[in-house]
């Protein structure tokens, strides 16, 4: 595999100084896709999106066209919600889309609302993203003033309003049903499933589409270039391009738009146009392929393709497109603790295993790091994890043994609980000796 020559689709204005302004956006074919879509009619737009095989870019990877198709017929009003609550550690690809290209998001949103006949749209932006909020608000005002949003858009007779909503700082609100709760003014806690999809009962218990920022940013291009052109990029199961947020111990951390399916983790980490290799010439210890909640992968998985259908069977997930690289100077125990601390802190507290188990795991890890570990703590960590995520936990093949494919099972309501288990399971699986050193010596070889 090699680095693709495909032109970027959604990051074209990242470098432009005025990409976030209406003038800058219009200068580069902005809002022409909306005009085209209004001429095509909702059903034709829906068909193009289905043809594009555009997978959701939020983490679950569900095809956007199919998601829209879940809306029950003849139930109105329907709502459209943009999930801009990007909070997963390592994930920072929606933020530049909102900061540098807010009109692209709005145009994609408007086209999508038109396609699914939504009555109103809501954009939920993470509370900490001040610049994204400012740019989106400015862009929305400009779009209203220019007649792209509001009543009788571009003379088409179609009208819609877009409401901006800022989050209050809870990671769990990235989970779509928690986001809907928060949007309604409730505590941001996930809803019970079933119903499994907000398409049936979402915002205000009406049919609702929740799409990720990046997903929607692709829509204008798909309308202009056609779904087939999008589907032609990447592979059959991983169409188009995708933003990857590369962080950790690489020379050039950053957000890169790469062609799906044909690019590998090795390309992303080592290619000079992307990560440029591990810092200081160090060796690779492990990497997290899809955001902090994904089970870790190790150097022997570097040649896996950036394709959810490849990474899942290999024991992890492509998730939110955040690749976190750990070099061989990393203490696996402390790395796991830091990740667990995040998830324990961000547990919403609704269901018992996550609320109690996450905090317990964090305390055990902290105790081990503080030099008060016991050998039985390793089994305890695994068993407590098993009570949150029962059964074999996803992991790549190891020592000749077959791996366990994604997804994990859970005793919890949402996947946040098992996310807490991921770093522990992954670190013990491969680096049990480091735990033993902490326990026996009260310290660490990586200091």
């Amino acid at each position, binding site marked *: 595999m090699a680095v693709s020559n495909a032109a970027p689709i959604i990051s074209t204005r990242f470098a432009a100084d005025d990409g976030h302004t209406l003038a800058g956006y219009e200068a580069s074919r902005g809002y022409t896709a909306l005009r085209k879509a209004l001429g095509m009619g909702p059903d034709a737009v829906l068909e193009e999106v289905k043809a594009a095989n555009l997978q959701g870019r939020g983490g679950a990877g569900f095809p956007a066209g199919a998601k829209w198709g879940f809306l029950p017929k003849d139930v109105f009003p329907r709502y459209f919600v943009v999930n801009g609550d990007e909070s997963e550690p390592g994930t920072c690809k929606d933020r530049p889309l909102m900061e540098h290209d807010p009109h692209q998001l709005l145009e994609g949103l408007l086209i999508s609302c038109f396609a699914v006949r939504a009555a109103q749209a809501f954009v939920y932006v993470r509370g900490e993203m001040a610049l994204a909020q400012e740019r989106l608000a400015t862009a929305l005002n400009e779009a209203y003033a220019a007649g792209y949003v509001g009543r009788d858009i571009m003379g088409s007779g179609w009208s819609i309003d877009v409401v901006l909503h800022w989050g209050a700082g809870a990671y769990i609100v990235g989970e779509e049903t928690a986001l809907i709760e928060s949007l309604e003014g409730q505590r941001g806690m996930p809803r019970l499933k079933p119903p499994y999809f907000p398409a049936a009962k979402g915002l205000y218990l009406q049919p609702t589409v929740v799409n990720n920022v990046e997903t929607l940013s692709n829509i204008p291009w798909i309308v202009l270039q056609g779904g087939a052109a999008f589907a032609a990029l990447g592979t059959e199961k991983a169409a188009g391009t995708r933003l990857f947020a590369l962080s950790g111990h690489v020379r050039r951390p950053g957000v890169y738009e790469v062609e799906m399916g044909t690019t590998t983790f090795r390309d992303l980490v080592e290619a000079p146009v992307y990560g440029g290799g591990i810092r200081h010439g160090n060796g690779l210890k492990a990497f997290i392929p899809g955001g902090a909640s994904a089970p870790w992968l190790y150097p022997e998985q570097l040649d896996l393709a950036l394709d959810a259908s490849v990474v899942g069977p290999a024991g992890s997930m492509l998730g939110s497109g955040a690749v976190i690289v750990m070099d061989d100077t990393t203490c696996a125990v402390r790395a796991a603790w830091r990740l667990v601390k995040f998830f324990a802190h961000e547990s919403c507290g*609704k*269901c018992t295993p996550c609320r*109690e188990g996450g905090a317990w795991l964090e305390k055990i890890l902290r105790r081990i790091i503080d030099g008060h570990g016991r050998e039985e703590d390793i089994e305890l960590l695994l068993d407590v994890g098993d009570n949150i995520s029962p059964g074999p936990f996803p992991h790549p093949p190891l020592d000749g043994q077959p791996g366990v494919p994604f997804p994990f099972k859970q*005793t919890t309501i949402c996947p946040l609980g098992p996310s807490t288990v991921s770093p522990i399971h992954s670190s013990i699986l491969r680096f049990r000796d480091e735990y033993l050193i902490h326990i026996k010596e009260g310290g660490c070889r990586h200091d």
Partner: protein
Amino acid sequence: MADSEQATKETLTVTLDGKEIEAEPGELVIAAAERNGVYIPRFCYHPRMRSVGMCRMCIVEIDSGRGPALQPSCMVPVSEGMTVTTESALTKKAQDGVLEFLLINHPLDCPVCDKGGECPLQDQTLAFGPGESRFVEEKRHFEKPIAISELVYLDRERCVLCDRCTRFAKEVAGDPLISFIDRGNHTQVNTFPDDPFSSYFSGNTVQLCPVGALLARPYRFRARPWDLDQVESTCTSCAFGCRVALQSSANRLVRKLGVDVDPVNWGWLCDKGRFDFEATNSDDRLGGPLVRSRAPGAAGDGAGELAPGTWSEAWDRVVEGIARARLRPGRESIAVLGGARLTNEDAYAWSKLARSVLGTDSVDAQLGDGLPAEVVVGLPRASIDAACGADTVLLLAPDVKEELPVLYLRLRQAVVERGLQVVEVSPVATAMTPYTAVSLRYRPGEAASVVRAVLSGDQATGTDGPADERRRAGELLRAGSLVCVLGRPSLAESAQPVAAAAASVLDALPEVTFLSALRRANVHGALDMGLAPGVLPGRVSLEEGRRWFADAWGSLPSGPGLDAHGILTGAAEGRVACLVLLGADPLADFPDRSLARRALAGAGFVLAVDGFLTASARRADVVLPAAVYGEKGGTTTNLEGRVSRLHQKITPPGTARTDWMIAAELAWRLGGDLGFTSEDEVWDEIERLAPSHHGLTRARLASAEGFDGLLAGGVPEAGDRDAPPTMSQADSPGVLGAMRHTKDDSLATTGMGHDRHPDPQSGSEPAGAPPGLAAAEGAASAGGSGYADGGTPQEVRGDGDAVQASVATETDQGGSDAFRPSGGGADHGSAQRPSPLRWSGGGATAPTPPPLDRYSLRLVSARKLYDDGTLVQRSPSLAPLAPGPRIRLNPGDLSPLGVGTGTKLQVTSGQGRVVLVAVADAGVPQGSALVTFNQPGPGAADLIDSDGAVTEVRIETLGGAGGATS
């Protein structure tokens, strides 16, 4: 569950732990399993609330066709062919894990925890949990406990965050005053800052709590559950009739818990009902008779002080007082006021005593604060379920949240969950107003004209409501099944306009049925037992029932007596020679305190039978100590006419005894014999004689069928209810398991079996002693001509001949003067069981209110849940909650005075003048003024003129500058 309302009710087949079971469509796995004998552990699930699936305790392996997966059984409805495995290794490990998680931060301070011993966390840990703890870290700490209201403490360390209390507050009570705050492992339940959990229903959260996190102030540290003994009973704090478990320790009541019965309270109680058992334990209880000493040289009564006396002294004085009264002519020479706090058996005994021995029909269980008895008894009836299941409810009643709190919960639930349409016609906004489809205001005195305008669609009638609202109300009343909830919206206006309004509804919509909203305890039972003028036991009129009851009782008064207003007026004018106060405190409860005061002063001889020395009892000549709630068995009747059982849990203090025993002994001392020697015999006689209660046998009441209570008067149970939810101890911790599951009579009679005799501590002979003994003691008794001949008490013959003489007296002539022993089991000869009284509006002409006076406001007066009444004020936990008297005025009436909320105003009516704190309240229409009734201190009763159709008041600032309003 909406899902359960599928059109086709076929059953599904589910495989549960290898066995095929039948389940209802829409039924949750956890409920279907429990119905089939498999208990799945749970904390957050509660059959009366929405499932939230939060605690994860009930996860089991469920295979709906896509392979087995761990799923919360409280969230998953059964489906055809589903396989449920509750005992697999995977399930067991997951349940173990959840219990371990719940325990790691639990303080395990079980030895000092109220819940210890009846704790679902303890029990389920024993049954399903891990055997040992692996948690060596520091536990989570919170300040323990914090008071979240006057009645409830919260210990957040013990909390397992099951969302039961918070869900209850939001979903069931509609008081979302407690909520989760903070996040993750620091999540806690708490109130909003400076906003306590002051809900009338807060005690339910204590009962719902599956651990000891929520603690009731009146119960905390008072008992260990294994020391508690309980009986099933019925709450009589209001007339709703919630079923309860009454628990005691060391012969003191310590706790009342709601029991879930489908037709009534669904397990809920209001805080007044839950905690006012404290009054039973009060040091103020009367443990012996009080007799007013005779002032030296004075011939009459009432000159000296009330002092403790013996029962013999007391009886002598009572017999003397009654004998003297019998010498006075007139239907009101002897009158009996009260009885709504008694059991049915007590009320029947007094009703029989009054009619057949005392010879008076001037009996009234209501104190001028309800509706005419013939209206309550004679309207076609609806059950609570019928009201909640109707298409429309017409609410012509006071604020049900204040007076009948659990009826409020039921109606609110019906509105929120199933779309009941409520049309309210009320003088002021109430707690139900936000849940109504239409809420119309009327000016005091004009209820009937507003209702008629709604029914007729006539927009020209002089009412204030917007025309389209009246039209909408009229449409709703005709839209489908209609139940009218009928009470006395305001004590400051005559009951007649409300009765007239009810008559109009019945006239226009003959299919309507009525649910009474009278509030006081067993007032409906007392009316059913004939404690009302012109009404005999079994809801028959005096005339209709004359033959039947004369056959059984021997004699009846010749004509209808007086109601409470008439009795008090007569007493004030000196025409009542003997006034019996049967647990009645007219100084507190009669709307017109001035009249009550004059009546007590003007009555000849006053006998009070009460558990407490109330303000009115203080003015009596003799006070006889009565057993109160928890100290006696029998039955009570709720507002829909449902008869359910009471049971004795503790013994009364001193020599206090039940009211029916006092009635029986009084009869015997007067030479008569009521003919029963136990409350069971009283009930047997009621069942035999009272037409509306025919068939409600003791055996049925004691059966599983009778556990929910039985509707008297042939009122149908509202059918088509969903199957009652299956409750278990984790759903209602504290209610000792066997009661709910088996409805077992043997448990129900733990406190006092039917076979027991009166309390051996009472120190008096059983009520059923032979009459000869009474004669030997010289108890005064009067013969058929004894009243009219003007003899002095000394001349009244005290021998058994009087009994013989009266037998010959014809019942339909001079009936009020005749009495004879009934013999109890008399054969009724040829008399037909009388037909029940039907009221359709006769005599319900509303008095005309005076013309509007722009300088006056029309007074509205209604009660609050916590008031100056005996039960609240003798319950230390509740007494401070009485809000105190206030005058609530529309801001448009208050601001012209240049004052606002908190200002003291002088309020003047024709009856009196009081100073009250003003509150601006947009729920009070302009031109009206709302003064809460019976709060500590001067208040509405000092203003209300019970002779008038309405009461008008003027308000002035204390500076004297202001005056006019409007």
